[in-house]
């Protein structure tokens, strides 16, 4: 009897929890097809908000800018994060290691308002001295990459820790130079982690409001800034359409990538089995 109760209580708790996590997402998708203008009351199916979105220059150009920044951020974060992860994992002793460790992980816990404010004050000082940079794509990229690097470091570092280091030693013994070892042995070993770090920092950048708001200048509003300023004013059905479209893209991406990962895993276990057989 207790086992039975335990099981059903567990199922109930999990269902309610998932319901809580998914209700807002479902609501956004459903109401993107609502024909009503004002409130969130269903008044019939309509695609008008998608049509309105196509004519919404502010959102469209914001999306273009966001996309460019996200691509650059993901690349920059992965490169810098790989450097940092490599340093943290391989170089246990060097002058300033404590400071380095602190600086790598601090952006993860510092409120974004603080990071944004301090970066902006620095950029203003730099601008006072040198007359550049203008606030826009580059400055937003700087902030996003600082944050993205911290995430990329965590992802890459955990993979580096798991990696079998004797492979690198073997390559070294066979006469590889350090650069060759890195590009021929280390990188292929951590490429999955690099892939997930890239995707993670890409979405992080695409979604960021606070850093972007501090670091953007006039005429360089990213999509989240546009959405945020509208959301502050009230409900805007076009935002629901944006949400539904992102959810569509994400679902396709997640399904495709999990299919791909499953295939890679299958291949790998097949190879392992073949290797074990000799």
């Amino acid at each position: 009897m207790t086992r039975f109760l335990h099981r059903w209580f567990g199922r109930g708790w999990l269902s309610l929890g998932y319901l809580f996590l998914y209700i807002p997402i479902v609501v956004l998708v459903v109401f993107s097809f609502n024909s009503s203008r004002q409130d969130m009351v269903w008044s019939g199916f309509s695609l008008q908000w998608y049509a309105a979105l196509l004519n919404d220059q502010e959102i469209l150009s914001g999306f273009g800018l966001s996309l460019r920044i996200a691509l650059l951020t993901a690349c920059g974060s992965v490169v810098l994060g790989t450097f940092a992860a490599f340093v943290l994992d391989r170089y246990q002793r060097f002058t300033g290691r404590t400071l380095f460790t602190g600086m790598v992980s601090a952006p993860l816990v510092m409120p974004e308002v603080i990071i944004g404010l301090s970066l902006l004050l620095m950029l203003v000082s730099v601008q006072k001295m040198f007359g550049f940079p203008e606030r826009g794509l580059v400055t937003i990229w700087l902030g996003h990459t600082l944050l993205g690097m911290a995430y990329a470091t965590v992802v890459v570092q955990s993979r580096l820790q798991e990696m079998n280091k004797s492979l690198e030693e073997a390559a070294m013994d066979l006469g590889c130079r350090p650069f060759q070892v890195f590009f021929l042995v280390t990188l292929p070993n951590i490429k999955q982690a690099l892939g997930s770090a890239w995707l993670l920092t890409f979405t992080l950048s695409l979604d960021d409001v606070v850093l972007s708001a501090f670091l953007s200048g006039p005429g360089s509003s990213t999509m989240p800034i546009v959405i945020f300023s509208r959301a502050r004013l009230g409900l805007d059905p076009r935002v629901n359409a944006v949400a539904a479209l992102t959810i569509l893209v994400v679902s396709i991406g997640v399904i495709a990538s999990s299919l791909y990962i499953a295939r890679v895993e299958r291949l790998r276990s097949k190879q392992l089995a073949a290797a074990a057989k000799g």
Partner: protein
Amino acid sequence: MNFLKNLFKQPGRNAVIAVPFLWLTFAFLIPFLIVLRISFADLDSGDGGPFGTLLTVADGILTLKIKFANYLFIAQDELYAITYLNSIKFAAITAALCLTIGYPFAYFMARAKPAMRPVLLMLVMMPFWTSFLLRIYAWKGILANNGILNSFLLNLGVISEPLHLMNTQFSLIIGMVYAYLPFMILPLYANLVKMDVRFIEAAADLGATPWQTFWRITVPLSKSGIIAGTMLVFIPAVGEYVIPELLGGPETLMIGRQLWDEFFTNNDWPLASSVTVVVILLILVPMAIFNKYQAEQEARK
């Protein structure tokens, strides 16, 4: 000298260290030093404003100009005390609620059939891939006076007048718990799934009731997961800006919003900088406790 000698001994290694080190110095450390410097300045003091130098040499005398006026202002103005306390209060409530909801959630996930676990885990991670901003925005549509929840309850006849839910403590806390719940579930799940079930079986064999087993075996064994999850929720929640701005009301003023207003609306950069420095100190303490705890855990392994 030793330092310099080491510097040139391994040029490749040092170059690898230098790239991220210089980047972080430029993009993280220097900005904070600038904030610290500006926090000691006056808005308009006639000496170059907040960007002037702190050190001046006049008549051969070196003067260090540090003004504590901003900090005194923060200490004396009741508004700031309320704002800081509010931030801690709402972050603590959020962390407590996330733990209450998230612990059983993670527990039942970890006790699910092994084949089901990856699916359950994936379902917790999935919302992360949808924009955080849009998910918070959705709560506005749910909780608004003419929103989904109210029209649902009105149609059912449970209430005769729409409930005022938006821009209250209630809506703020719902949004915060919603956004931070996965940060509680994931570390707890990782901890609980690794737990050795033999301890639980042994407790049952020795006659413990399920409740006793849970409180005396499972919970103590998952202590590190509880602490990690609580910190992962509490620390970022203190500085949250977007959720209070979209879902909070006048009585839910939190420090992130205060900072933003000071900076963008009042344009008082020195004061905003001082507020920032205080927030950093406020966050560094729990972080230091957390790090110390983690280091102890590592040492025990």
